[in-house]
């Protein structure tokens, strides 16, 4: 540790020298790493937006419970209160006959005149239950078993699809993280090996003089971290620019799309990409250095 502290400036100078020795190649590595991390950032941002949309849809997920005939209004109120207490129910609301009819008229639009053929309102009151999709099955069982509920209509197929989409987004995100991680580590470890090869005579001399492996390897680790960190910062800046531009475009054209907060997305990228690049730089350098350690 003492040796490392005494040689801090030497390590930074060496790092600069190692990078300058293969400047063009290192520059392309930074761009390559930056692009890969940018892709990862895109997937993470896409996953975030997707998750947000799915969550929004989840919040909209609902089932409808229809009452038994001849049930009194007070029983209906009581049932609504009971349903509201079931685990996984976000909100519950009684929709009376008139509102049910109004809703159908809205759906039918110009065709709503067909409803005038009925002498009486053909619709029945029902209970509208917004639920957490993950708890759908137990909620359905609970509501069906309530006295006074005759029939429950669920949008199982739609809700199952929503769940599948969420799952697919998550898997895609994990796969992308793994792919980016492995690729970056491979690129970087090859870069470090190249640097070691270019400096093999110096490394050999240091070994003969008794230098510990860690002393020889540290500037290479530093250069690996520096280059990937640079790539990470490049990727983060590009992504911030892209998010800002995209939000301006989408915000003015697709107003109804419920996007997550721009600030949250940007903050996440600014924190995630440089941190990840730092870790990948450390790992890549570590793997690259195995060629020193094995000898």
């Amino acid at each position, binding site marked *: 540790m*003492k040796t490392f502290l005494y*040689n801090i400036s030497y390590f930074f100078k060496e790092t600069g020298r190692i990078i300058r020795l293969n400047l063009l190649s290192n520059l392309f590595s930074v761009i390559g790493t930056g692009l890969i991390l940018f892709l990862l950032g895109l997937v993470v941002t896409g996953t975030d937006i997707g998750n947000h949309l799915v969550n929004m849809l989840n919040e909209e997920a609902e089932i409808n419970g229809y009452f038994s005939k001849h049930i009194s209004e007070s029983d209906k109120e009581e049932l609504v209160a009971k349903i509201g207490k079931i685990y996984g129910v976000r909100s519950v609301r009684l929709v009376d006959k008139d509102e049910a009819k109004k809703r159908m008229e809205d759906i039918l639009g110009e065709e709503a005149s067909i409803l005038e053929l009925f002498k009486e309102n053909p619709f029945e009151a029902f209970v509208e239950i917004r639920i957490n999709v993950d708890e759908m099955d137990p909620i359905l069982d609970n509501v069906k078993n309530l006295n006074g509920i005759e029939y429950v209509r669920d949008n199982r197929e739609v809700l199952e699809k929503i769940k599948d989409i969420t799952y697919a987004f998550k898997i895609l995100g994990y796969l992308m993280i793994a792919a980016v991680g492995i690729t970056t580590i491979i690129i970087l470890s090859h870069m470090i090996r190249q640097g070691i090869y270019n400096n093999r005579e110096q490394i050999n001399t240091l070994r003969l*003089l008794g*230098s510990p492996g860690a002393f020889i390897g540290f500037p290479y680790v530093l250069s690996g971290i520096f280059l990937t960190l640079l790539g990470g910062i490049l990727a983060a800046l590009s992504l911030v620019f892209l998010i800002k531009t995209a939000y301006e475009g989408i915000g003015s054209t697709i107003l109804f799309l419920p996007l997550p907060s721009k600030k949250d997305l940007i903050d996440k990228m600014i924190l995630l990409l440089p941190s990840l690049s730092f870790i990948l730089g450390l790992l890549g350098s570590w793997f690259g250095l195995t060629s020193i350690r094995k000898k």
Partner: protein
Amino acid sequence: MIISENVSLIYPDKTQALSNVNLEIKPGELVYITGPSGSGKTSFLKLLMGMEFPTSGSLSVFGHEINKSNYGNIQKLRRKIGPVFQEFKLIQGRTALENVMMGMRFLGIKPKQMKEQAHEALEKVGLGHKKYSKVENLSWGESQRVAIARAVARKPLLILADEPTGNLDYDNAINILKLLKSFREEDTTVIITTHATHLINNEKNAMFINVYKGRITAERKGMAV
């Protein structure tokens, strides 16, 4: 203390470099290893530095059993040695001062002291005025002096100089030997290999070892063999 007992070295291609070498070298001793090219002088130095391992026998260098040492122990031993390689092994693109300091960076010496020791060593070898010159711009003799400065600046227990007079004219060779001998006064063991016996004929206060085809053919203290 260096103790070699029945040390033999056979290279992977079956070349017998050393055969049954028995030696004892005390701290602070000046040792000349002589013999023709290919006799095994450099191989013996390589054993002392842990660059090669004895095929049989045992070799102890300042308490480090070469046969039993792992990489970490060998590196510890090397930190006690100041080697002057035949081909110098200076790091190109660096100044003389940087090269000398490079040999000390991992010895736990404070930066200021490290710089002082490097300056002092370069002054000692007569290169104080060229400390900021890149080593690739130095002459053969100057490069060799930088290599010597790098070896001695570390204040080692043992200086190993492999054919330091190899490519030098008589006057320069004598000067280099004088320089190397001077470090012995600082209680450092100095081992020098050379095939130029005429340069050391008048040496009285040293140990002479003659090697021929991997065997010690003569060992004597005092005058050259």
